[in-house]
């Protein structure tokens, strides 16, 4: 019944810019990433943001969504076994994730930095050769799993990462992929 509300084709980003938005709060960042994947795949116009100060713990993400679609969104999440801890109407501006990239070309190697995370690729071999920066505990783990693997074969941070640093590394990964994919 609410299908007509959900598709982003008619007014893509505008849907979450008004005052009628809410946030979905989850137990941890891994659940946020799963929910983001699920909702984006379902066509919802949602955004990942920082939580308001009163519910921050230190390493948090929330999903901003059009509040009027709450029931349908919750139903979609329930299908994949996800249940937000709470749904909160947005009453003040939310923090925006970083969207700036610094790119350094070393000739054979390309390094992309997103926020505090750096990912470096060997352009000749397509091997990921280093992960640098970050402070959350999944970063050494992600480095262990990604370094030495080809860009297309390496696990993506969003698949095995769990924190905001992992999310930032995903952004660096996507940027490196965008720059190195044949156009």
């Amino acid at each position, binding site marked *: 019944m609410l299908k007509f509300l959900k598709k982003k084709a008619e007014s893509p980003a505008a849907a979450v810019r008004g005052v009628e938005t809410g946030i979905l709060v989850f137990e*941890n*960042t*891994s659940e946020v990433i799963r929910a983001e994947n699920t909702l984006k795949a379902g066509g919802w116009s949602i955004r990942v943001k*920082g939580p308001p*100060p009163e519910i*921050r*713990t*230190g*390493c*948090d993400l929330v999903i901003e969504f059009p509040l009027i679609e709450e029931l349908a969104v919750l139903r979609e999440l329930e299908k994949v076994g996800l249940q937000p801890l709470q749904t909160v109407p947005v009453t003040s501006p939310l*923090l*925006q*994730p*970083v*969207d*700036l990239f*610094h790119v*350094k070309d*070393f000739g*054979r*190697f390309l*390094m992309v*930095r997103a*926020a*505090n*995370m*750096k990912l*470096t690729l*060997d352009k000749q071999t397509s*091997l990921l*050769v*280093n*992960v*640098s*920066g*970050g*402070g*959350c*505990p*999944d*970063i*050494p*783990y*992600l*480095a*262990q799993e990604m*370094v030495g693997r080809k860009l297309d074969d390496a696990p993506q941070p969003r698949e*095995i*990462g*769990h*924190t*905001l*640093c*992992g*999310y*930032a590394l995903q952004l660096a990964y996507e940027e490196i992929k965008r720059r190195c994919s044949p156009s």
Partner: protein
Amino acid sequence: MLAVVGTIPNPDFPLATGEVTLKGEHIYVEGHPAPVNRGTPALMAAAIKCLEVLGQPMPYGYLAGDIGLGDGSRRLYDHLVRHLPQSEFSTLTFHYLQPDVDWHNKVLFAMGQMRRRPILIADAGFMYAAKMSGLAADYDLFTPDAGELAFLADEEAPHPFYTRGFILHEDHNIPELIRRAYEHRNAARRLLVKGRIDYIARTEGVVATIDSPSEEAMEPIGGTGDTLTGILSALVCSGFDVDRAALLAARTNRIAGRLVSPTPMTQVAEIIARIPEALGQALEKS
């Protein structure tokens, strides 16, 4: 004695505490091995290399496996809250831990109950939590890189992921970011900012810079910040005053990098192996 608190990127690594040793490219605590190629094991290996040169006891480790779910970090936090008040260390370094302000505050309170206050060094996730708690000034040293410094300078960001663009744009202007971090009381008493040029700073501003030897390829190599914090921790606990330790640590890390003729694909274990030689050279020049 130096104690280091951090995580191991292995979900099966248990909570382990005790003297940490280094054999080849693995550290060991309570008999559990961890490769030194990244994260807290890289920090500990670098510290051990320096402590061996300086004839100091091996460091104490508080370690637990954590791949980002925060379970190992919470076990560590809980252990520290219960055991730190009865412990005695000259230097305590916090590293890769899930940032959690509530747990940070409990740990800081527990440190306040120690008989003698150790010199407190924070890097990585615990530094993020220390900044977010508003209690950064309780620490003696933070060791951010340029991106993390921008986060410290942004009084509204709870994590580097949310650093506002107009501040991130300033990350080539390190002295301005340092000024801003201190203005909002989001920096430790000293900062050692890692980068193309390393900066040592305190409330009054920059007190020293180190820019040689310079290897551009050091920036992408994962773990070079960890080794710097490890060298620094070892020097501080060996009795060097904090400013001199920071200067020597920055030089040692740079020399160790130069000794391996690094490329962006160099792995930090190669650099760790050259730390004793590098420290010797840095001490000679000082």
